[in-house]
């Protein structure tokens, strides 16, 4: 995770954070009125961007997604949920680029995200779903903790709302953008000095596996506990109130665990 902080030394990465955030916010803002959960989320075609930005710009894409979401909230929905939205959207881009490198789904000598092989496309779909789930898990946990929105409804809606655009729109977007970004030497692995790009080791592989398991355990375990506690998935979940202790614990372990697993990579 050291590149998440060391990247701020590089001016080009700082510029990429600003541009990524600006693009994400510019696509988020026009859809602010298309409310899905009042005050929390809306119809978001912009969700196609964080995974793509993460894979291309690495930590700069992750910070860009976090800041871009916060700026989007500035245009009409700034609230306590914005703090969880900041971390959730950071994870939405961070988890995919970390797992892409460390989970072992793509060949070590073909790691750049050009999506030229079916293996890379499958890897993209997997990391996009896990990134979306990490975002849904963290925001769902945060608002359950505050007793604002039931976890089962929110986490399931955010995960779906993020996964669909990031797969359907994200794949063509990445295929078109990659050659240009590569040509301009703007891939994060090309910008950062070699010592700042974490090497792939047994420890990072373990971290990636732990991150995957924690996202799945946090989300699925949290949903199971929520359903067991009387909540329901998607919109039916609004029939119950938030604040289930077991959900807070299980989803909390997943949420905090994902961040800790990030430190291992």
């Amino acid at each position: 995770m050291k590149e998440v902080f060391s990247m701020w030394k590089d001016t080009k990465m700082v510029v990429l954070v600003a541009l990524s955030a600006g693009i994400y916010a510019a696509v988020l803002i026009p859809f602010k009125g298309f409310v899905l959960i009042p005050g929390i989320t809306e119809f978001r075609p912009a969700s196609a961007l964080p995974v793509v930005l993460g894979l291309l710009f690495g930590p700069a894409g992750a910070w860009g997604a976090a800041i871009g979401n916060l700026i989007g909230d500035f245009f009409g929905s700034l609230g306590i949920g914005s703090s969880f939205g900041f971390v959730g959207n950071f994870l939405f881009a961070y988890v995919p680029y970390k797992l892409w490198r460390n989970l072992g789904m793509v060949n070590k000598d073909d790691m750049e995200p050009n999506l030229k092989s079916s293996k890379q496309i499958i890897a993209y779909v997997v990391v996009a779903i896990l990134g979306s789930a990490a975002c849904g898990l963290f925001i769902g946990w945060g608002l359950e903790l505050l007793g604002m929105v039931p976890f089962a409804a929110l986490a399931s809606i955010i995960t779906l709302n993020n996964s669909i655009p990031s797969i359907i729109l994200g794949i063509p977007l990445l295929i078109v953008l990659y050659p240009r970004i590569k040509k301009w030497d703007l891939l994060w692995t090309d910008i950062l000095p070699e010592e700042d790009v974490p090497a792939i080791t047994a420890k990072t592989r373990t971290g990636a596996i732990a991150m995957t398991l924690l996202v799945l355990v946090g989300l699925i375990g949290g949903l199971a506990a929520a359903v067991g506690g009387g909540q329901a998935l998607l919109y039916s979940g609004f029939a119950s109130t938030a604040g289930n202790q077991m959900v807070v614990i299980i989803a909390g372990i997943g949420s905090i665990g994902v961040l800790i697993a990030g430190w291992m990579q």
Partner: protein
Amino acid sequence: MDMFLYLDNDTFLHRLDPRTKMLVMLASFVVALMFYSLPTLLGLTLVIVLYGMAGKTLGNLKRIRFILLMIALFSVVLWSLTYGGPTKILGPISTEGILYGIVIGMKFDIMIISGMIFLSSTKVEEISLGLVKLRLPYRGAFAFATAIRMVPMIVATSFTIAQAQKSRGLDLDSGNLLERAKKYVPLLIPTIISVIRGTNVFAMALESKGFGYSEDRTNYLQISIKKGDYAILFLALIVITVSTYFKFVVI
């Protein structure tokens, strides 16, 4: 097209330190989250509206009225259909559900209005400097402020690209909402490319002006906590203390 909420007035609220306004906004979030009672939330709304009036910022309510209305409406519809409760009115709709929907919608609208007042009375540069004074690293604050400034430019770029494609015969105006939205998706790619293309030049321009040369930067804009800030912070502290007392001791 002015996308920003900032209103250039010379009022007491505008002259407050951005850190004070951030803390007042956070305090309003905390109080809004604490209570589920309609009269309490109405009281909080009144306080926030008076605070906004002090800065002549309530004109922006018109600009966000669609979002406020949609949130309130969706909240009432959603919770009245799903909340349940013993006093049924029609089908699954109950009095308790409607009341809960109103309360939740109100909580969110209060937080959004509070955020709007902050943004209407605080310049982007002040927010950025306020964050730096709150110990956020300068480069993070710079990226944040630059991103906010980029948004209108990116939107303008997308309009230019849309106009260029229209002049080549692309029909963006026919079809239903979904069909029209689908036609805009391909325009996203040239917009992103035209924005990202400038990265190298942008970075060189920054470095040529000494970006990152020294950690101890000086700023043209100066902010400081003054008497008025202390008075407002003291009032916010009283509100938080009284709310906490009522929440955890009285109720």
